[in-house]
């Protein structure tokens, strides 16, 4: 069974579904309905396979599992190679979990070019899974870049009134960053002689080279995250994207940046990572405060959530670049949690948007009476986003801040103001949409969630609380891989240093670094 290419099956199965949908013939209505069902069945089946992967995953093994390696371009020493570790596992699960929900969410909202829409989503799923499974630079790059195409089309074709502007902004921003990354990859290949990620992780390049490579990769990942100040494409893209597009964008695509930092930047450029860490952490803190304040004054629900995403991603980069196990674990956890919560929040916006066709908060209000079920699930996601203990949002935020506190108290202190600001803008959103006087008659006449919508939102709500109270199923798998990553990072850092330095290198552990004296009396 081990030899069976499970990951490839998982990755390319959606593509098979897409081909199948393309071959559907008949009246337009027939085609649309068949396309929906095909896409749904395919994605559910893919999700089932990914669950099987989860069960088969050995939590004690910190390395890559389910490895597949086939020679692809033997003359160039490039191979088709895939594998999963505790970090990428959950991004794959997130992708496979959200895709069927997206398809369900688009069931009625998308009425034009349904067939093409479903094809785009299935192709997108293939590319997302591929990105997180790839263990070869070239393969990774292909998937990573190709993701842009279906997303570009989803925003550009099924988007809102300013879709053209938004889709181009999205495409150009991300592409520009990626071009630099491509050049850096070529450099790595030229210098390191290999495109195999595990090999490269073990053998960092010379320090002077690392700085440039780090910056090139950083350009790409920072845009994807997005980090301040290259975040402005995100609110526009979210506002114009159809609901499901926003869900995937916030739920999975943003995580590719953070994943990239963990997979490439930290292990391959340890010296540069250490050098730039204060810089990245500063940007993170700025992102948290700046975008939280911007979120506070938004009128558009989607824009508010988009800005909050930037702030939440700030916690991720803060945690990752603390280079501590707690911080990185927190960063990974925060990404997964944010994947669920922000996706759910966009779905919640979609629910009311489908009814009133406006995202302006002022047009709603007082809907708690006519939509109690909606108010309840929305409340859970709102609290998750605020980071209330007992929801998944808390654990990631808390651990990221803790990791940051270990290395730089000031950063942690500043970032923690995001706790207060986050509460302010989310409560404001909730209050203006759900609570308040029932001034808008059409809003108070909206129907509560229909069974299809309950089916979409209920699992997300349950997950937010379940993971928040009992995160062990995730943590137990993330922790070993994160530990391994940190060890690798520290080893590689030592490798790059002159031996005399290494001998003196038994610096005080971070734990006691802040305690100056008097601990032993």
């Amino acid at each position: 069974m081990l030899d069976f290419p499970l990951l490839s099956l998982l990755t390319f199965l959606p593509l098979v579904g897409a081909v199948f949908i393309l071959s559907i013939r008949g009246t337009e209505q027939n085609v649309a309905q068949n396309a929906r069902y095909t896409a749904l069945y395919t994605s559910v089946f893919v999700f089932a396979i990914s669950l099987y992967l989860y069960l088969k995953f050995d939590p004690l093994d910190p390395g890559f599992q389910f490895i597949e390696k086939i020679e692809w371009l033997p003359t160039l020493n490039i191979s088709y190679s895939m594998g999963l570790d505790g970090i990428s596992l959950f991004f794959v699960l997130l992708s496979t979990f959200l895709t069927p929900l997206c398809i369900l969410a688009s069931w009625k909202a998308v009425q034009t070019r349904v067939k093409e829409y479903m094809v785009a989503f299935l192709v997108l799923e293939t590319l997302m899974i591929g990105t997180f499974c790839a263990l070869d630079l070239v393969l990774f790059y292909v998937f990573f870049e190709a993701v842009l195409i279906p997303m570009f089309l989803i925003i550009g074709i099924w988007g809102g009134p300013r879709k053209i502007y938004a889709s181009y902004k999205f495409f150009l921003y991300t592409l520009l960053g990626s071009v630099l990354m491509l050049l850096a990859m070529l450099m790595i290949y030229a210098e390191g002689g290999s495109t195999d990620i595990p090999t490269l992780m073990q053998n960092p390049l010379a320090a002077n080279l690392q700085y440039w490579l780090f910056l090139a990769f950083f350009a790409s990942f920072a845009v994807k995250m997005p980090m301040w100040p290259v975040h402005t494409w995100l609110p526009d893209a979210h506002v114009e994207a159809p609901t499901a597009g926003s869900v995937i964008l916030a739920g999975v695509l943003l995580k590719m940046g953070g994943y990239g930092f963990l997979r490439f930047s930290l292990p391959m450029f340890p010296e540069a990572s250490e050098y730039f860490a204060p810089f990245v952490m500063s940007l993170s803190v700025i992102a948290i405060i700046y975008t939280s304040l911007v979120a506070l004054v938004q009128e558009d629900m989607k824009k508010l959530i988009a800005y909050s995403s930037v702030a939440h991603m700030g916690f991720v980069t803060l945690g990752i670049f603390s280079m501590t196990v707690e911080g990185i674990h927190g960063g990974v956890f925060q990404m997964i949690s944010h994947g669920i919560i922000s996706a759910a929040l966009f779905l919640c916006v979609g629910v009311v948007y489908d009814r009133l066709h406006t995202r302006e908060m002022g047009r709603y209000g007082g809907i708690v009476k006519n939509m109690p079920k909606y108010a309840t699930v929305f409340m859970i996601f709102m609290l998750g986003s605020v980071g209330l203990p007992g929801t998944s949002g808390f654990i990631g935020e808390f651990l990221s801040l803790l990791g940051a506190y270990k290395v730089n108290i000031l950063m942690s202190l500043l970032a923690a103001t995001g706790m207060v600001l986050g509460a302010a803008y989310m409560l404001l959103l909730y209050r203006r949409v759900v609570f308040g006087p029932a001034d808008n008659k059409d809003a108070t006449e909206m129907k509560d969630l229909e069974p299809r919508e309950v089916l979409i939102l209920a699992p997300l709500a349950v997950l937010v609380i379940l993971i928040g109270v009992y995160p062990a199923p995730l943590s137990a798998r993330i922790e070993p891989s994160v530990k391994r990553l940190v060890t690798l990072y520290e080893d590689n850092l030592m490798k790059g240093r002159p031996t005399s330095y290494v001998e003196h290198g038994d610096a005080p552990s971070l734990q006691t670094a802040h305690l100056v004296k008097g601990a032993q009396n």
Partner: protein
Amino acid sequence: MEYLAILTPLAAFLGAFLFGKKIGDRGAQFVTCAGVILAALCSIALFFDVALYGHDRTLPLFTWIAAGDFSVDWALRFDTLSVVMMCVITIVSSCVHVYSIGYMSHDPAKGRFMSYLSLFTFAMLMLVSADNLLQLFFGWEGVGLASYLLIGFWSHKHSANSAAMKAFIVNRVGDFGLVMGMFTLFMIFGSVQFDAIFNDAPHYADAMFDFMGWEVHALTLACLLLFIGACGKSAQLGLHTWLPDAMEGPTPVSALIHAATMVTAGVFLVARFSPVFEYAPDALMVVCLVGATTAFVAATIGMTQFDIKRVIAYSTMSQLGYMFFALGVSAYGAAMFHLVTHAFFKALLFLGAGSVIHAMSNEQDMRKMGGIYKLIPATYILMWVGSLALAGIPFFAGYYSKDIILESAFADHSWFGEYAYWMGISAALMTAFYSWRLILMTFHGKPRAEKEVLHHVHESPKVMLLPLLVLAVGALFSGAVFYEPFVGSGYAKQEQVHTEVVAEHMDIERDVEAPVLDEREEDPHAWNRFGFWRTSIKVLHENDTLEAAHHVPEWVKLLPTGVGILGIVLAYVAYLWTQGFPALISRLFKPLHALFFHKWYFDELYNILFKEGAIGFGRMFSVSDKKVIDALGADGMSQAAAAGGGALRKFQSGYVYQYAFVMIIGLIAVISWVIYEGMF
């Protein structure tokens, strides 16, 4: 039994919330009341087992977070401190649950209301039975959430929503401090588990901490950060502005959350961390000063307000101030004692006020009340009981607890203890004054309400009066009954044991199960303070102000009662025996009256500083996103986008396969580019 005590309110919440429609309002009321009363019975049983027979225990549940060095479990800890809190919470909560059946009888969302009350009770129980700081934080935020939901319960009211948001956000500011304190403790001790911290605290008594370049005393820093959290939850000066506004919630909520339980969480936190605070004298000083000032300031505001609930709210804030300065002089037992008695008489006052409001057709302004004592005699008498206890009139509960606090402050023999004593004495005078101002304005004098309202004035139903009676019993007797175990004088023998315990704490290789405990178990009736609190509260021998409090001069003991009676007399003079006296006073001391009446202008200041500031920056940044960042980064791109838009539009008219084709072409293009680039 332990699980029943903690988890039944959760089960009741889930049952009433999720199946509210199926079981109906009656069903929801039954489920929640039964759940909480069951929890109360279990808590009382636990009180006997744990507090009186010394069977402390911790029940681990399962791992919560484990990352790197950081690891915490869900665990339930039962020692004297937690079971005392559990009893207070569940008993008051039971009263409030039952009372709410009557009070909310006209509300369309009874089931939801009851379920929120149960949710609150659960969160509060989790807070006090936590075994580590993170779980405490879970309860801490949980009660904050329940408070938010209940303050904003009448969500159609604009003011209720604002108040709910304000409560949550101001509390978050406190939480910020609490989280940072947690991090600091973790950095020092490598754990956030209580026993680990408390056992190691003596070793770090002199440790210094590098805090952003400053070298500060490690434990003082940690304690001060925790205290910021406590200030938020317990509405101490600076972070108190949310509490008066929280009166927007239904009155049972005010009684349960904003008087008896949640707001005392901060007091509990500091008492819980007494083994750390004891080694941070500077932090204790700050606690004392903030508490004493709060007691004074809140009392001044309380004298000038007209909303019956706000008067009681400021009174609560003032009483919490007393508890804090008691903590500040290491009289933890006295603070806990006042916490318990206050829970009873303040809940009684709030529910009594609720009964008045209920009778007056939801009128809360005391200027529109008056002359109704004959119409609602039971409420009237119960309000008297509550007020007598609050004013510290002899043999009512508040007399015992407030006096011991003031005596401890005096006995501390420090300048801040002295400050606290005099602040406390003047606050006691004002407390008695505003309590009788409330009673006289509400019940006596000429009726000032409209005829229509007066016509409807009626005594509350039994379901509302019965819980009041239970609380009144507490307000009458809890002081006398609990005096010895909570704050009593230690016998010579016990004192010796006490020093041994302290010495034991200093010992590095100390066994957690101190052998002294067994010795004490032999005599379960030695209910003096040391046998009662045991290790749940720790006082260094030289800080034992409670012992010293029993030996203060006579005038120190008599003064609080004296000013209490004086305050009552003054209130009678001002509001019943003379005419126009208050108006005269407020004219004579106009600036001072304005300062008090406008609550020392905290709200105005915060509005400008924080609310307007945040929104201003937000506006500025959202403009700079467009005008600066986009202008520099994406301006050229958007030009390109405009040009490209036309091309895309053409594509949309195409056939099915075109899109797939585009994708494939794109893919191939990228792949071939990569391969080509890789060739050289």
